């Protein structure tokens, strides 16, 4: 299993720059946020009043046996409670709706960004990993917005209110209560260091578990057929076990930490009883004040353990934010230039000029490729597997950019054209067929409203899929499952072929578009395409030479270089690679099979 850099991003728990960027997402909801902050401050303030009311009740009314006063106080308390209810509900709803909106924005932003990223990025990044950005990482930020950022104001108000109240009532006693603070800070610091390391481990294991799961689910057929279940299970179990161990470790830390804080708070309460009790005996302090003091001290420590909880949220969120921002900051290597040039006319002329290309470093897959396709010409590309045919197409549609040389479409370098404008000129039947879940119709049309149902039907009948579709219970509305799993491979290929035709392109590109289709259908389609593409440019890649022999020109690609070009007849006359391929495919049918071993080396 490959490890990825972003699994290791664990966040600094607090990073000012990132926080500012995160808070930027709250800006559109500035007013709501402000209101939420006001609400939370009000709520905290109201909550602090409680023990103080107790003090008044004891000292002023109970001690003075003032029943009426007690009644009034009760009413005030009641009013506060009702107000609290309203405010809290409002605040919760407000915060959550802000959180949800921010999540919505984030998800849209991430998803939109992934749509812009270049294909090479997808080559190196597993889908599961990008999924995590859109799902759990965004969730972690929601947690931050709903229970982190804003409520922290509440905690601050709470703490400062309590500190103020304590000092006002008796500053010496207050000093005593706070004497345990350094210890609490120390304990918290140690805890943080431990938990951080552990958290990193857990995140890594979760990421590993998810990508393992994802791949196992998609490849389950291969796993089952090769009887690999026990070993896959073992592998899964071992990741799971590491995950368990890491979590048990975390539990240990938490189990130590919380009681630790409680113990320290008990110490300070003990101090209050001992010293404060003495004061009451001496008459330096009222009984009510002591009771209020005790209640405040208890409440003082609650927000502190809350803050640690929030620290966790913060840490998780920061790590997620970093991963999300890393994705968002990944520029697409392939983008529309600032001032795109649009060819005067969409004719469909293509030119490769001294193109070199490597997927990685200097591992050239294509070397010095030059050729031109005139408007309306039909070009065929043949060559051994792995010789770079698909790569050629990938470059033409700008899935990858060429490092050396240039590619022109209608006389303009494709790097200077608008990306969508460029790609809309082509319809490509990719070698790897991909169907989306949806319906037959939506797979042909890809939800493009400009394509009418008529055109969809037309395209389907061109590839002779209409009879098959008509037999389906729901016809064009028939459900297509993920990756088209209920169709035969040939049917899938035809469906993706129909898609290309429905888009009515200037330039049609077929990369092994009928490799899984039977000969009869193939011939029929070929005739239909020939009609359809009259006057339009097309590029056809095929191993079955029958598919291409009436092309205007054939290019023979060998190990990334063009070795032969010409028409079928010219190439046969050259007696080179093409001739040999041709011999192999057909001559043997007369029993005159050439010996493969005697094929002259091409070098």
């Amino acid at each position, binding site marked *: 299993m*490959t490890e990825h850099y972003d699994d290791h991003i664990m966040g600094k728990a607090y990073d000012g720059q990132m926080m500012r960027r995160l808070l930027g997402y709250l800006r559109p909801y500035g007013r709501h946020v402000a209101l939420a902050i006001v609400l939370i401050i009000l709520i905290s303030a109201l909550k602090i009043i409680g023990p103080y009311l107790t003090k008044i009740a004891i000292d002023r009314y*109970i001690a003075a046996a003032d*029943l009426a006063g*007690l009644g009034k106080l009760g009413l005030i*308390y009641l009013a506060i409670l009702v107000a609290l209810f309203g405010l809290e509900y409002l605040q*919760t709803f407000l915060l*959550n709706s802000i959180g949800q909106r921010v*999540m*919505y924005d984030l*998800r849209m932003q991430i*998803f*939109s960004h992934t*749509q812009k990223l270049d294909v090479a990025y997808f*080559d190196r990044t*597993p*889908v599961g990993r990008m999924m995590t950005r859109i799902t759990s990482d965004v969730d972690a930020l929601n947690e931050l917005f709903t229970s982190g950022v804003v409520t922290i104001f509440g905690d601050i108000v709470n703490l400062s209110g309590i500190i103020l109240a304590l000092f006002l009532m008796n500053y010496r006693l207050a000093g005593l209560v706070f004497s345990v603070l350094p210890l609490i800070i120390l304990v918290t610091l140690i805890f943080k260091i431990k938990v951080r390391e552990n958290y990193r481990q857990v995140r890594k294991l979760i990421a590993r578990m998810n990508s393992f*799961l994802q*791949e196992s*689910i998609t490849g*389950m*057929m291969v796993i*089952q*057929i*090769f009887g690999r*279940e026990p*070993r896959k*299970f073992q592998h899964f179990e071992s990741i*799971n076990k590491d995950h368990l161990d890491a979590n*048990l470790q975390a*539990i240990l830390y938490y*189990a130590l930490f919380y009681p630790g804080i*409680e113990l320290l708070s008990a110490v300070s309460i003990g101090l209050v009883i001992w010293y404060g*009790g*003495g004061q009451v005996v001496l008459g330096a302090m009222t009984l009510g004040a002591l*009771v209020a003091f*005790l209640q405040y001290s208890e409440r003082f420590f609650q927000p502190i353990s809350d803050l640690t909880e929030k620290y966790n949220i913060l840490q998780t969120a920061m790590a997620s934010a970093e991963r999300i921002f890393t994705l968002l900051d990944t520029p697409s290597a392939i983008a529309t230039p600032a001032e795109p040039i649009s060819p005067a006319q969409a004719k469909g002329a293509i030119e490769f000029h001294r193109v070199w290309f490597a997927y990685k470093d200097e591992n050239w897959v294509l070397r010095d490729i030059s050729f031109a396709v005139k408007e309306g010409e039909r070009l065929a590309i043949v060559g*051994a*597997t792995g010789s770079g045919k698909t790569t050629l197409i990938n470059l033409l*549609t700008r899935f990858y950019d060429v490092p050396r040389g240039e590619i022109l479409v209608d006389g303009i370098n494709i790097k200077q054209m608008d990306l969508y404008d460029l790609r*809309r000129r082509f319809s*490509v039947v990719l*070698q*790897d067929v991909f169907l*989306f879940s949806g319906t037959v119709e939506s797979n042909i049309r*890809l*939800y493009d409203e400009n394509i009418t149902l008529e055109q969809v039907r037309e395209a389907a009948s061109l590839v002779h899929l209409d009879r098959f579709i008509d037999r389906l219970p729901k016809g064009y509305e028939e459900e297509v499952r*993920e990756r088209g799993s209920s169709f*035969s*491979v040939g049917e899938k290929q*035809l469906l993706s072929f129909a898609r290309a035709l429905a*888009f009515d392109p200037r330039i049609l590109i077929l990369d092994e578009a009928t490799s899984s289709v*039977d000969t*009869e259908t193939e011939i029929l389609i070929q005739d239909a395409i020939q009609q359809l593409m009259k006057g339009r440019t097309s590029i056809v890649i095929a191993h*079955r*030479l*029958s598919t291409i*022999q009436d092309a205007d020109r054939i290019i023979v690609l060998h190990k990334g270089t063009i070795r032969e070009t010409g028409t079928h007849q010219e190439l046969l006359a050259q007696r080179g690679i093409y001739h040999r*391929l041709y011999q192999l*495919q057909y001559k043997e*049918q007369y029993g005159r099979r050439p010996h493969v071993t005697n094929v002259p080396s091409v070098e």
Partner: protein
Amino acid sequence: MFKTYSLYRLLPYLQRYRFKLFYGAACLLVTNVFALAQPWILKKVIDSLSLEITTEKLLFYSGLVVGFSFAEGLFRFLMRRILIGVSRYIEYDLRNDFFAHMEKLSLSFFHRMKTGDLMSRSTNDLGAVRMVLGPGIMYSMNTLVISTVATILLFSISWRLTLIALLPLVFVSICVKKFGEEIHKRFDKIQEQYAEISAKAQENLSGIRVVKAYAREESEIRSFETLNRLYVQKALALVRVSGAFHPLLGLLLGFSSVALLWIGGRQVIEHRMTLGDMVAFMGYLAMLIWPTIALGWVVNIFQRGAASMSRMLRIWDTVPEIRDGDDLAPVDRISGEIEFCHLTFSYEPGQAPALKDINLQIPQGATLAIVGKTGAGKSTLVNLILRIYDPPPGALLVDGVPVERIPLAVLRSHIGYVPQETFLFSDTVKENMAFGVAQGDPQEVERVAKVADIYDDVMSFPNHFDTLVGERGITLSGGQKQRTAIARALLTDPRILILDDALSSVDTYTEEKILRGLSAVMRQRTTILISHRISTVKRADHIIVLDEGRIVEQGRHEDLLTLGGLYAELNKKQLLEEELAEF
């Protein structure tokens, strides 16, 4: 509780850790005893402060507070470790079992479900269930203990006051029930929507090349937006309910405090109760606040957990369609004879059959070739041999035994299969080739790589056999993927070799080389070869022509040519193409 039946299915797992759970519960009890003693100490302090009290006495009480708190902390530590620990153990068990169960499910199941959906069930939903097992159980026990004991103590201080103070709790329980149901319902909807978002993103990202090739980015973003917006709506619908829950509980409990202030205060004034009593009463009432709030939280956890558990159960309760039956034949080796007797098969009951009345016998070691149009049923036929789908009982025999009676593991381990669509794992080339064997002996790997004619390609990669291929083998060319899959099948040294159009993406030259290499391999094994090219199938011992699920012609190449049917027609077409080109 309400609508949480699905959680009963967790009982066997809890059972496994019953001793731990018991110790955990005991610790929890002790923890709370010490916790609950503390307001009592305060009562003592305050009551004695009204009288005379010595500094020693005060010191003693302070010491008591600290001591009790220490004891409480100790047991709380044990409680958390044990109870939360158990939830992690069970999570571990659940996750293993869930994965193991998925491994058993048949392919039709994986075709029905979306990957994104399965993923969200095995991660998100499992997480929600874990919350029930850990914090859920711990806090509900806690709530139970504290509220019972606190209530008893409250009664012991003043039963009348207690009755009044606890009156609002009746409303609390009503509240919990009503809200719980509503939360459950709304949460279920959210999870469903969440799964949909995941599935959408998942598919889009997997098919990104198509999206880009057709410049469909904008419309993809729009449809993602629709799902996303729905999600926000559903999430807010939940908040509208759950947001009121907590504050409402707070309010109800607040009523108790007010009642205490009024009535308790009067009693103290009238000297029917001491001030210390009242303070302790307040303390215990405050202690009830946390469990009640926790209750709201716990209810949430339980409802979410139950919703998630039932989503997981929908998978868990799916019985694998393909599995070993009860009357297994004692087969542990397969020599490779295959027979179809009047086999008719449809994918869905009531649907037109994909295969009709297939009768066929393939002797051990023979080579069968299948040709036929797109969608004729070729792949279906071989899939039945592998039991990717189950044939009707008794209609398909291997070595004279109905396949459904051969242990699945035995059957599949004797078949080498090159599927029509290649799936590779994002691992090294070597690991992919050695996928079907326990130990990938490097020499063996190289040998099969040569037979599949992929050796030279691999050696041209920067890291040779240790080169990583992308997801699904994305960084290999079409033909390289296919040849890797051939090598993978060969390495298992199978008795039956099935090549489902396995040379469709390679050029003729390579095809010829592979076929030549394979002919040695095929000699000793039963081989089934599916192809559209006459050149590939003509040397087979037996050729069948499938059309619309029926065998319409069969025999050797020459026989079929003389027959003058579909096969001869196909042959003519392929020859004709060539002659056309001969001009």
